[in-house]
């Protein structure tokens, strides 16, 4: 996280630690690849990523916007700036004061050969002590404040993204891989917090240190200061020169790392296939090539970025010699004290650091801004349309009408055109059709997960687009094939159906949906905690829980998606019974896969390629010998026909039609 252990950077620290900053700075980019699954290890300070190759698109505006996020803390930040100015000024004064003490000693002991005035030296040193303590307090307090400001800012940023997710239309999530979005909330926000944490304190610190050091040099001796300043352009030029090269190499490193990560992921995701299809050799060779690429790029990046500090150190020494030569001449000519030289030496040491510091901040900021832009992209994504203020009747009968509905997931690819249908209160509407015919789309529209392109959907005559989404959805219950349970107790998961449900109500709902029995066989009954992947429940049991959840919500309108497979047979009977009971007296839309459900439905909607090709009940549709009849034969009779060709398909239509029972007697 932002407080990665080995963050080191300060304007006036010696070169080795600062090298660490440069190296890590470049490495601490979020990983935009697949979401790391393991808690540990993936968020160390050396976390590489592929996305870092993305250049900040609009650096200036994004930077301003990021700074805008700190607005609520502007007073604290102003305080920090004041403290930083004072602190750097104090820290810059330190060497000068120590130098004065040295002067006193030197003048007495060396030049004048008189006893040292310890009282005077002591007085000067006490001032130095006070100055250093002041510096310590100021720097500690401002670091403390910055930490709080940054943490609070990223807290708000995460919160904003979380709130935004609630307001985004579902279509946004269709286009966005889940891992990618997660990465923005965690990795990118982290990266922003690291960037802010470091840059807030360091940029100010470096700038003020540079200014105050230069100022102090002029105070001590303006002639020497001018001489010393000659090295500034050299230092800056070298930093920029090396920095540019290392940045290219780092970008390459991240790209290679991302690609390698993808390869490893793929090899493990398809591990059994790689094995059984005998592809190990090829996969290995592929990996080795990428791995070598990564090695070369990362070596280059580390080497180039590593030499910045030694080079700066050399420039510093060059500076020292120049100062010594000129200073020596000045001392000889009596224009300068020996203490001033000593102070100057210390200043010259201090002053290449802020320059390199600023260079590495620029790097860091670039990465932080890239992350900020990715977060801003989420925050700026178009939201679903604002809720209107209409209202549904107090008591809902449950008449659902589609009136000339047009819809497509993207406007240029219409999926549903001019669809009209009426679902009477309490009726069951079975939606059938081949895979991909658009059955789920109908459900999405009723819940208003997506907006229509034309026509309207009404409940009891009220256009669902005219009422707040919450109100609409509070009347609709839903059981999807894809059961969604969260990490919590069984009770919590059922209670999810209705806020504020009592334990008794939860258990009643569980009983109504045939879930009570199996729940009581769980180790802790209703208080059994469902783990992350819900591996402690079977697929059928999960479905029962989601049915219980729907029961609890007491919906007027129901949406059911029958499971096609993967439910063990005994539980399936229960699921089926529970769904039937849930359906009773409610207007229900069922994406149906079971013969019984379809046959009992009041209306069967046969969908093909997004449009409803037939409507009617079972009998009518079979008699029509259209799409339904074809589908029916292939779906529910195919196996039977090949197995027992003597039984005509019409056998299904006999009133009791339980051919399935008949075969038991055969």
């Amino acid at each position, binding site marked *: 996280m932002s407080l990665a252990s080995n963050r080191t950077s300060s304007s006036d620290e010696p070169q080795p*630690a600062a090298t660490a900053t440069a190296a890590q700075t470049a490495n601490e980019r979020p990983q935009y690849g697949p979401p790391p699954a393991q808690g540990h290890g993936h968020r160390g300070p050396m976390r590489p990523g592929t996305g870092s190759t993305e250049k900040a698109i609009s650096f200036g505006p994004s930077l301003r916007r990021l700074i805008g996020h700190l607005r609520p803390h502007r007073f604290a930040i102003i305080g920090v700036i004041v403290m930083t100015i004072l602190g750097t000024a104090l820290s810059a004064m330190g060497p000068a004061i120590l130098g004065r003490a040295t002067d006193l000693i030197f003048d007495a002991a060396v030049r004048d050969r008189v006893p040292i005035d310890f009282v005077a030296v002591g007085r000067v040193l006490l001032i130095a002590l006070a100055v*250093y303590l002041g510096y310590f307090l100021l720097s500690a307090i401002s670091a403390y404040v910055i930490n709080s400001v940054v943490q609070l800012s990223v807290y708000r940023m995460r919160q904003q993204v979380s709130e935004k997710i609630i307001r985004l239309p579902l279509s946004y999530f269709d286009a966005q891989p889940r891992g990618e979005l997660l990465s923005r909330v965690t990795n990118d926000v982290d990266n922003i917090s690291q960037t802010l944490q470091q840059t807030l304190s360091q940029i100010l610190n470096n700038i003020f240190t540079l200014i105050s050091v230069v100022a102090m040099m002029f105070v001590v001796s303006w002639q020497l200061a001018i001489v010393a300043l000659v090295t500034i352009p050299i230092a800056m030029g070298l930093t920029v020169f090396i920095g540019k090269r290392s940045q290219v190499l780092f970008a390459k490193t991240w790209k290679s790392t991302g690609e390698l990560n993808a390869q490893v992921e793929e090899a493990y995701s398809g591990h059994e296939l790689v094995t*059984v299809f*005998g592809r190990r050799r090829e996969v290995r060779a592929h990996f080795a090539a990428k791995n070598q690429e990564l090695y070369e790029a990362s070596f280059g990046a580390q080497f180039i970025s590593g030499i910045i500090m030694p080079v700066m150190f050399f420039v510093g020494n060059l500076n020292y010699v120049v100062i010594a030569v000129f200073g020596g001449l000045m001392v000889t000519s009596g224009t300068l004290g020996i203490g001033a030289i000593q102070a100057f030496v210390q200043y010259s040491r201090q002053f290449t650091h802020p320059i390199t510091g600023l260079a590495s901040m620029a790097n860091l900021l670039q990465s932080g801004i890239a992350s900020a832009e990715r977060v801003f992209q989420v925050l700026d994504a178009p939201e679903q349309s604002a809720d209107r203020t209409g209202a549904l009747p107090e008591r809902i009968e449950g008449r659902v009408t589609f009136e000339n509905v047009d819809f497509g997931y993207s406007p240029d690819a219409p999926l549903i055109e001019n669809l009209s249908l009426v679902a009477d209160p309490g009726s069951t509407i079975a939606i059938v059709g081949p*895979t991909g015919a658009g059955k789920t789309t109908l459900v999405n529209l009723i819940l208003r997960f997506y907006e229509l392109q034309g026509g309207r959907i009404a409940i009891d005559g009220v256009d669902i687009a005219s009422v707040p989404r919450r109100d609409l959805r509070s009347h609709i219950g839903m059981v999807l094939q894809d059961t969604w349970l969260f990490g919590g107790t069984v009770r919590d998961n059922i209670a999810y159906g209705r806020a504020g449900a009592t334990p008794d109500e939860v258990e009643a709902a569980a009983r109504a949906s045939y879930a009570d029995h199996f729940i009581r066989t769980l180790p802790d009954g209703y208080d059994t905690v469902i783990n992350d992947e819900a591996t402690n429940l079977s697929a059928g049991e999960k479905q029962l829980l989601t049915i219980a959840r729907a029961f609890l919500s007491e919906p007027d309108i129901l949406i059911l998606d029958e499971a096609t*497979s993967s439910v063990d047979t005994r539980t399936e009977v229960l699921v089926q019974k529970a769904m039937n009971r849930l359906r009773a007296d409610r207007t229900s839309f069922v994406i149906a896969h079971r013969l019984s459900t379809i046959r009992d439905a009041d209306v069967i909607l046969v969908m093909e390629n997004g449009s409803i090709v037939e409507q009617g009940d079972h009998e009518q549709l079979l008699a029509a010998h259209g799409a339904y009849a074809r589908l029916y034969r292939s779906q529910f009779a195919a196996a039977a026909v090949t197995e027992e060709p003597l039984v005509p398909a019409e056998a299904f239509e006999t009133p009791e039609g339980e051919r399935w029972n008949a075969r038991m007697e055969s």
Partner: protein
Amino acid sequence: MMRLLAQYLRPYLPQLTAVVLLQLTQAIASLFLPTLNAAIIDDGIATGNTGTIWRLGGVMLLVSFAQISAQIAAIWFGARAAMGFGRDLREALFEHGLEFSAQEVGRFGAPTLITRNTNDVQQVQMLVLMTATMIVSAPLTAIGGILMALREDVGLSWIILAAVILLGGVIGMLIAQMGPLFGTLQLRIDTINRVLREQITGLRVIRAFTREASEAERFDIANIELTDTATRAGRRMAMMFPSVFIVLNLSSVAVVWFGAFRIADGNLEVGQLTAYLAYLAQILMSVMMSTMMLMIAPRAAVSAARIREVLTTGSTVAPPRNPVVPATRTGVLEMREVGFTYPGAASPVLDGISFTAHPGTTTAIIGSTGSGKTTLVNLIPRLYDVTSGSVALDGVDVRELDPDVLWGRIGLVPQRPYLFSGTVASNLRMGDPEASDADLWRALEIAQARDFVERMPHGLDAPIAQGGSNVSGGQRQRLAIARALVRRPSIYIFDDSFSALDVSTDAALRAALAREVSDATVVTVAQRVSTIRDADQIVVLDAGRVAGVGTHDELLESCPTYDEIVDSQFRPEDEEVNA
């Protein structure tokens, strides 16, 4: 960690030796600099001797140049060694992981294996790099600095000692407090990740049940906890540098004060005092560098342990030392009293399973969730090895066969029909790299995939995203079936491979398959009775045991478990509900 480092750094011993020597040179050179500085002041500036200043300045630049040359060379060798170490370790991990059986992959889980292969290696690699390029010189500089300082003046050495102890103590205390905080932080981040992940996957449910408010609250709790921990850890971090500088500055003041007395006594020169201050800074910075090591090392150690865990896990499926070549190649598959128990599990997943699958016939395996169907078929290509009994192909135990020979004869369509990133063609050619386009189209046709592949923008060269996420579930299954068909194996394994197909496609596909693979041995796992009714032999599994073997009709007569399965899927339950 040490063992891992020792093993994988051995090839880089020359580079590392060079690093140590160069860093030693560098440290010595850098220790000379303050002495030269002092000499310039004492002998040059103080005496007003410009010639001496020039001479000493020249020497100083030479020393300085030597120092940075050594340092740059050390970084070069260090980066070579560290990055090479990382590369080798990644390769070793990857190759080791490839040899794993499904059991090891399943035990670790693919995500953590991926993390270990890249991120964990990076942590250790970074430790090596930092050590080689910076940290290794820290103790050298510190010791050298102390020696040089003692050479300048022994009388002030107690200040150095006190400062080192004070600094070590303060930093040690901060790190000790940060350690557990970082651990907690990790957990908090995991939590926020989990909550958000749940919220995104359950978006429809959340909206349908209008629970946005309670979800926002759940996220906020996780967010607050994360912020809280991060803030507390951050405060410790914030104290680090101010602490280092106050110790450094206080001891500088002490050096000047007590140095003044030594100068008054004639035991010290002023230039020496300046040099002393420089050494002091050097020593304390070295101490700080060493403590930095203390901060990275625990993290890297955890990573190293995670890496070693993978490397020391042997594959439960080892290739035979002397592979047996079967006398015939007909494709007769036999299960002989097969049993399988997961390591450490109390009860077996499979127990005493026997049946024979002949070429030209289809064997279907059916049973409720958790009855061991997938495990059973995975024993054939040795994704797992039996724990009792044996699986034999053409009369030879699969464990005796050359794995390449064994796999060459199997066409597997796994439960999760994974597709690799690339193109339709590159996925199909996994089955047979030599296959012609015509072969591919034929396989697609049988798999009922020709139509949609033809409709894709580039046909066979249409891009496939990782995992096949850009095609629908049904299309994915059909492509996976086509991939197995391209291989033309003698044994087909379909593990619930028709579940995402609507039943008419399913029927057409099975009819085409029946024609195509008429002389192969087909083993198919199914959930739906309708998919397997026409199988030559149906094996009914119940809790890892065979509940019955026979044709559909035979089983209806003889096997109550089968009857129950058929019942649940076909009998209209309205009677039951009404009853």
